[in-house]
């Protein structure tokens, strides 16, 4: 009886939370990767100019064609930028911004389209507050004192993070669409090692969500923020549509990212691996060694078994292995632990609601909030354009917080992976037993302390 009550209580918590939030399809016994999570609808406070949108066309699009497309989207008149094929479009009366954006984003010649956000001159000194309407629900950034962190460093495109995952929704190509909230995020040429293609598009949802935590377009008055939003991303697809890959492919992906050059430079400084396996691979270990020798920091997920064993390659000594905490800074139940754990970062617990104002439940589950497409729509209809903001949990979601911090540290001038790792570990907030322990590693990352300790931009 007692056991039954406990079980009912366990079931009741998520049911209550989810009921307040909205859509969630019933769980099925064999759900592994095909589940649409809790999502919040596209709404929030307006922080952009009425009746105006910005549209950038791709190279080679003729002005006349651009003009036709803008008119078709409801444009009455347009001002062309002096520096490229970017237009400020004034909409005809009766045309909604959202409709115009929807139309423009489906047009093949359009690079991106976004509302014309209102620029604000005043920021608290040393702080940067983004005007993304759902930023207020990103408790996982606030836990890291993100606004003070951005006051120190936001990153730039000289530093890129390669995300080895299921791909990223980074371009309009075939059935794939660029996630609207990637806006002006810069993407380097990636590769799809699953299908051997230059188009590393996401067909699962996972890689897009992970990448959004690192460099979602920020302060664009759309959706949510990214932690190192000034940095570039490289999509490297090493996991298939079910989120499964192999040692060989992951090793290939690491080598690709490390060897990539642009204008004679190696822009990839950080590799994010929100993936892992049970056994050890020489191929992957050697690829990681080559990456670290080349000055690239590798960050990997500790794994989601809730077990006392860190997944590989997070268990490697030259990798930053990342575990997850919930909204209370307590180890998430799924997060693996062990002697190889470096640090923890917010990964959330979708069954809890502890992160509202003053600790009062806000009716939203404590997952990491980012944009990705609905995997249900992708699976049932073959459409990869049904973008929403999803609360997702896991060490996969904790890892990109640390990868983003590593990227910002590179921008601060640190160039060696061992120094990056030491900076992150030595400035972490100690949790659990005093000193380093196997549950929390060196503790919860503290980006402000890490960034203030290094560089001149304090």
């Amino acid at each position, binding site marked *: 009886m007692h056991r039954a009550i406990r*079980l009912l209580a*366990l079931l009741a918590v*998520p049911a209550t939370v989810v009921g307040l939030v909205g859509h969630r399809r019933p*769980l099925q*016994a*064999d*759900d*592994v*990767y095909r*589940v*649409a*999570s809790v999502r919040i609808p596209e709404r929030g406070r307006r922080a952009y100019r009425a009746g105006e949108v910005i549209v950038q066309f791709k190279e080679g699009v003729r002005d006349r064609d651009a003009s036709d497309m803008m008119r078709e989207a409801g444009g009455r008149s347009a001002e062309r930028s002096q520096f490229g094929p970017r237009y400020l479009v004034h909409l005809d009366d009766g045309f909604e911004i959202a409709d115009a954006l929807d139309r423009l984003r489906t047009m093949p010649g359009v690079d991106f389209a976004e509302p014309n956000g209102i620029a604000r001159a005043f920021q608290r000194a040393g702080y940067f507050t983004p005007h993304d309407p759902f930023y207020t629900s990103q408790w996982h950034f606030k836990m890291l004192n993100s606004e003070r962190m951005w006051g120190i460093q936001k990153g730039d495109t000289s530093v890129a993070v390669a995300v080895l*995952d*299921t791909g990223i929704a980074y371009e309009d190509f075939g059935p794939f669409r660029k996630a609207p909230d990637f806006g002006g995020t810069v993407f380097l040429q990636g590769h799809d090692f699953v299908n051997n293609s230059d188009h590393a598009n996401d067909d*699962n*949802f*996972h890689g897009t969500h992970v990448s959004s935590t690192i460099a979602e377009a920020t302060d664009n008055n759309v959706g949510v923020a990214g932690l190192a939003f000034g940095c570039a991303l490289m999509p490297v697809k*090493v*996991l298939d549509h079910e*989120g*499964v*890959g*192999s*040692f*060989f492919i*992951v090793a290939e992906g690491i080598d690709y990212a490390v060897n990539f050059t642009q204008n004679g430079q190696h822009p990839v400084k950080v590799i994010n691996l*929100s*993936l*892992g*396996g*049970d*056994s050890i*691979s020489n191929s992957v270990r050697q690829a990681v060694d080559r990456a670290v020798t080349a000055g690239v920091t590798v960050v990997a*997920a*500790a*794994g*989601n*078994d*809730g077990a006392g064993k860190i*997944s590989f390659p*997070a268990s490697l000594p030259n990798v930053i292995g990342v575990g997850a905490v919930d909204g209370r800074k307590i180890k998430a*139940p*799924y997060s*693996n632990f062990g002697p190889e754990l470096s640090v923890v970062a917010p990964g959330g*617990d*979708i*069954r809890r609601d502890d992160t509202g104002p003053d600790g009062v439940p806000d009716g939203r589950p404590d*997952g990491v909030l980012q944009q990705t497409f609905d*995997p249900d729509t992708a699976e049932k209809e073959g459409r990869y354009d049904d973008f929403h903001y*999803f609360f*997702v*949990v*896991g*060490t*996969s*979601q904790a890892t990109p917080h640390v990868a983003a911090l590593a990227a910002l540290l590179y921008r601060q001038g640190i160039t060696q992976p061992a120094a990056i790792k030491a900076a992150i570990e030595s400035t972490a907030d100690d949790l659990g037993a005093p000193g380093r322990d196997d549950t929390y590693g060196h503790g919860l990352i503290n980006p402000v302390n890490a960034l203030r300790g290094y560089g001149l931009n304090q």
Partner: protein
Amino acid sequence: MPTVGLLLSLLLAGALEASPKDDPATTKSKATSAKATRAREEKCVDRWLASRKLDPYGMPEGTMYAGGTPLFNEATGRQIDRLDYIYGKHPEAKAACAPARKARSRRKPT
């Protein structure tokens, strides 16, 4: 007649006292036995997987997973039982190690 009633009452009381339901030792022993059965089943499955060069989730050795495991759904926070997952993929493993086992979901303790 009252003697028969008394006897019946005594017998009933005896039966109730002897009921394994209320005996903590029996309950504990049942739990221990279930644990032992599970451990035996896990061992059998692990042997079955190893003999076919499969990883602990029934996939080819060298497989990597989003989040490090196929058993945790990051979209729902839901964990599924490893043996159920393997049996779903390899019914022959179930036939070899747990022909009478019923599938069930497992939730991680909070």
